[in-house]
């Protein structure tokens, strides 16, 4: 058994240490807000925070999480930056189909926590690994700027 901390709560995990964190979150802990997209860290939809850093949970073996705090889309609203990003997303109606948005919000919140006033270059660099097939990129960029200002 491995113990991991997710959204401030400690969970005992029965999965093998090499199991991807994403599978544990969704299948074992029932935290299905984090989505499965490509499984090879090419789409960003499974992004969570590990000690505040945006990480693709499909690539992270649960055994390597250790003592670090995992935050998912279910918990990010309880952080100041996360709440601001979520509000900006609602204010600007960023979402279209929504499937990629948990990942987009997690990536945006990690960016703003590290860089409170990112320029377009910094936004491009941090968000390029998060795909959106509906093409909401323009609204995502606006959402990040809106959250930075609020």
């Amino acid at each position, binding site marked *: 058994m491995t113990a991991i901390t997710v959204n401030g709560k400690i969970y005992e995990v029965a999965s093998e240490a090499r199991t991807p964190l994403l599978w544990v979150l969704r299948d074992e802990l029932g935290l299905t807000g984090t989505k499965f997209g490509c499984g090879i860290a090419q789409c960003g939809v499974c992004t969570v925070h590990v000690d505040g850093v945006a990480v693709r949970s499909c690539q992270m*073996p649960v055994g390597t999480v250790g003592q670090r705090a995992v935050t998912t889309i279910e918990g990010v609203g309880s952080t100041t930056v996360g709440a601001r990003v979520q509000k900006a997303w609602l204010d600007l109606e960023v979402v279209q189909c929504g499937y990629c948005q948990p990942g987009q919000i997690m990536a945006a919140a990690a960016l703003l926590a590290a860089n409170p006033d990112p320029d377009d270059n910094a936004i491009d660099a941090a968000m390029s690994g998060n795909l959106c097939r509906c093409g909401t990129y323009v609204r995502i960029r606006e959402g990040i700027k809106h959250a930075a200002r609020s």
Partner: protein
Amino acid sequence: MKRKTLLTLVALVAVAGVAVLGVVGRMVLQPGPYAFAGGRPVALSAYRGPSPTGVPAELALADTVTRGAYVASMADCQACHTAPGGQPFAGGRAFVLPFGTIYTPNLTPDPETGIGNWTDAQFLNAVHRGIAPDGSRYYPAFPYPSYTLLSDEDVLAIKAHLFTLKPVKQANKPNNFGFPYNQRWLMAIWSVLFNPNERFRPVPERSPEWNRGAYLVEAAGHCGECHTPRNLMQALDQRRKFGGGVAEGWTAYNISSDTVSGVGDWSAADLAAYLSTGHARGRGVASGPMAEAVELSLSRLTKSDIGAIVTYLRSVPAVKGDLPVPAGPAPSTPQTVIDNPVGKRIFEGNCASCHAWTGAGAAREEAQLTGVRTVNDPSGANAALMILHGSGAGTPYRPAMPGFGKAYSNDEIAAVTNYVTARFGARASKLTAGDIGRLRDAN
């Protein structure tokens, strides 16, 4: 006057002849693969220590089938004798050489297209001497100058293993070598010069572990076939043993004990982890042909055998190379501007998710770019090949990097490789679209 000219000519020819003889002589009269060890090697039968051949002690009591499979894994026959997506050991894998393309033959026991009718003597003759049952000669793409060191028992254990396989009917493909390389009989001369046709001779002055390692590395594993440079006659240049070579376009790095270009600063644990799992923390991931060697051979060896290989490798003298000392950790934003917008854009979208903006690896240690030799190689060849073809095992739970060769043009692959080496390596590569095209063709 005429006589003088004639004499001068004769003298010139004589000098040229001596020079050629000298060069060829130096190639022929070179030290054996483990002559660096000194001591007085003895015949296997005269060696008093535990046998360096066969299976390790742990498997001594295993059944014949298990032992045969193990010896076949030691020699890694499967990697070359299997076509991509083809039946294991049925051959057909292409090797693109400077002389043309050669295809490996079928080793399954099919009587018609495989080796089903071969006698023990014929099999020994092929593996030790490079001679086919019909008397024709193999090209040294088949590493018989290494396999010649294998004991008769081990060669026949491999044959026994091959005969347990399901026969596959698959005709061998002819090579397309042009003249004079299509003259197989020339290989008879080559063999006289470069195949010692001698079994492994243990060195009593060295430890049993070292001798086992020497046998695994030189006879079975044939590491030098890729990692030792070749001379003009395409024989291994043992004076620069393990100084680095090329395998299917990939750079087979220097694995001598040189601390900068080689593996001299790797700990025994680093080497053992790399060989048995294909990854050592901060050292990189085995890719290309080395990934196959790990998957089909090294990962199947016992811990004691991996330990023996490490002991032997660390005893190989340093051969200096020209690779730079790897750069240290990188900041998350580059300190100097890298004028490569295309490379940067591709890195942002495709690479940073796993490798992180610091190159330290985002989700797992296998994704670390900093400090890794491939990224600190100004030729950029292996980095580009990993980007083209991907890396890592295709087995569940093991990390794997997808290949981007079908998604990006040669210009784009060159740009992102140059960006990665500039950003995280000691010196930037300067690959062009033409270079990437050649790397695609070599593989």
